[in-house]
């Protein structure tokens, strides 16, 4: 947490939060209401856009990704009693400070890690019980976009995007090329210009886009993003955020996005899960988040 919240519009700086989240003495109410209005005003544009998106995607009630009272510790506790549900078509943004176990939740969903206690359920399958080989199959339902894109640097852009298709589909070469072109065009890259390039020749934003194209190559039902906008300039951040929204809108995929970029989060999230101190301190829509009386939530938003 940054200790001095950036205070662009002269709002009163949120006071130091005490141990107890959410306990609000009555005399604080006017201050809190002011803070809420302030937040709404500050994020008005993002909230508006987010609301429109949510209306358009019309998420169903069926849970597709679920963490049920999950705890995990290595040398020290990483997550304690974390629960949230992503319904089909929804976009869940997992926000929080650095080092609060945000990326760990993605690894749990992918079953790269197993929880010490609690259950992780993806598309009806409890991942705790599956073997390593079964997990490889379940992972094909998910597309993952890594923080550093994690493109295979010995392969061209074409080979990278074609890789999951070659592994898991029976498509012939022509069909694979058609699919790769389609995915590259979807992420606004010109196939003929980039297909033969190596990842080392691409800019950060382009790598991210190729990473998204590779993640969605086999048309997975779930897309996972690890810090999709970190390390990018503001313009590229906007582009990538719009791209993730385009995916949820046009392809109706369920997305789980790990990010500390709250502006992007407000634009795309159906629900935001705020992680702090190994726990989820808030889970709800962006609207609810700005209305939250929780001091930590307010401080987090104020400090953005």
């Amino acid at each position, binding site marked *: 947490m940054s200790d001095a919240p950036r205070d662009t519009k002269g709002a009163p700086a949120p006071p130091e939060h005490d141990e107890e989240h959410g306990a609000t003495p009555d005399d604080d109410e006017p201050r809190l209401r002011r803070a809420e209005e302030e937040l709404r005003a500050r994020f008005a544009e993002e909230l508006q856009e987010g609301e429109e998106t949510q209306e358009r995607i019309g998420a169903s009630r069926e849970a597709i990704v679920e963490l049920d009272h999950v705890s995990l510790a290595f040398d020290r506790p990483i997550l304690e009693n974390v629960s949230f549900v992503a319904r089909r078509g929804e976009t869940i943004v997992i926000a929080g400070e650095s080092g609060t176990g945000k990326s760990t939740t993605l690894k749990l969903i*992918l079953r790269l890690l197993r929880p010490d206690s609690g259950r992780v359920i993806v598309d009806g399958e409890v991942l705790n019980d599956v073997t390593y080989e079964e997990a490889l199959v379940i992972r094909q339902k998910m597309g993952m976009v890594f923080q550093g894109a994690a*493109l295979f*640097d010995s392969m061209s852009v074409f080979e990278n995007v074609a890789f999951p298709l070659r592994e898991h589909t029976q498509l012939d070469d022509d069909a694979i090329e058609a699919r790769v072109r389609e995915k590259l065009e979807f992420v606004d890259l010109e196939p003929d210009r980039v297909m033969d390039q190596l990842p080392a020749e691409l800019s950060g934003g382009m790598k991210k886009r190729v990473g998204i194209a590779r993640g969605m190559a086999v048309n997975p039902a779930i897309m996972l993003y690890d810090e999709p906008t970190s390390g990018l300039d503001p313009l590229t951040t906007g582009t990538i955020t719009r791209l993730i929204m385009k995916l949820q809108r046009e392809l109706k995929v369920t997305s789980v996005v790990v990010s500390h970029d709250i502006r992007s989060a407000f634009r795309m999230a159906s629900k935001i899960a705020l992680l702090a101190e190994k726990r989820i301190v808030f889970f709800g829509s962006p609207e609810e988040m700005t209305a939250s009386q929780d001091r930590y939530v307010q401080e987090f938003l104020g400090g953005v």
Partner: protein
Amino acid sequence: MRVLAVQEYFGLAAKAIRFIFARPFYLGDVVQQMDSIGVESLGIVLLTGFFTGMVLALQTSVQMAQFGATMYIGRLVTASMVRELGPVLAAILVAGRVGSGIAAQIGSMRVTEQIDALNTLGVDPIKKLVTPRLLAALIMMPVLTILSDTVGIGGGNVIATAYVGIPTGLYWRTVWEQIASGGFILHYIPSDFVQGLVKPFVFGGIIAITGCYFGINTKGGTEGVGNATTRTVVVASVLILVIDYFLTQVLLFLFG
């Protein structure tokens, strides 16, 4: 902790060997690795093999002269090259050149999350990365060793003829005498060759698995990659020299 590492090492080896026989076979990767492990190591292995053969002939000529037995230079050079120096020197060189390369490549894939990416794309990294390298090393190490032996014995020929004055014909006859002296397996295969080719096969496996093991377990960014390469070269070289001794004992017991 150390015991656990040994267990992991053998676990990795067992998995990689099992995947040799399971679909899909990444033949393209195997051929590419055979190229980088075998063909690209050829120059350095031939050069060192040639000079090793020459220095062997030179040293033995000085020692043998004391007993008036210089005509046996060919036998000694052949026995040393085929049974010991060919396999061990080639393996040490390949461990330095290829083992470190494997560790560096897989290590940087680890720190840039490419190994995780393989996993999330539903592909077992051991199958995709380790098995092709293992297979390529198992095939190419014996080939490199045969070539190293051959130019080594050729190098011995050059010195024996030029310095000591042994006719080439005589030299090669003593070479053949040595090869035949160990007896034949299945009537045609000289026992010396079998001993000389079991070793590089085993060493190839050690080099590939060691490089992959340290590569996959790389931690801590680029510095970790550097550590992984160093450890690979040290551990693989030590393993090669130690296992060479025990392997020799077993082979001598079996084939004499």
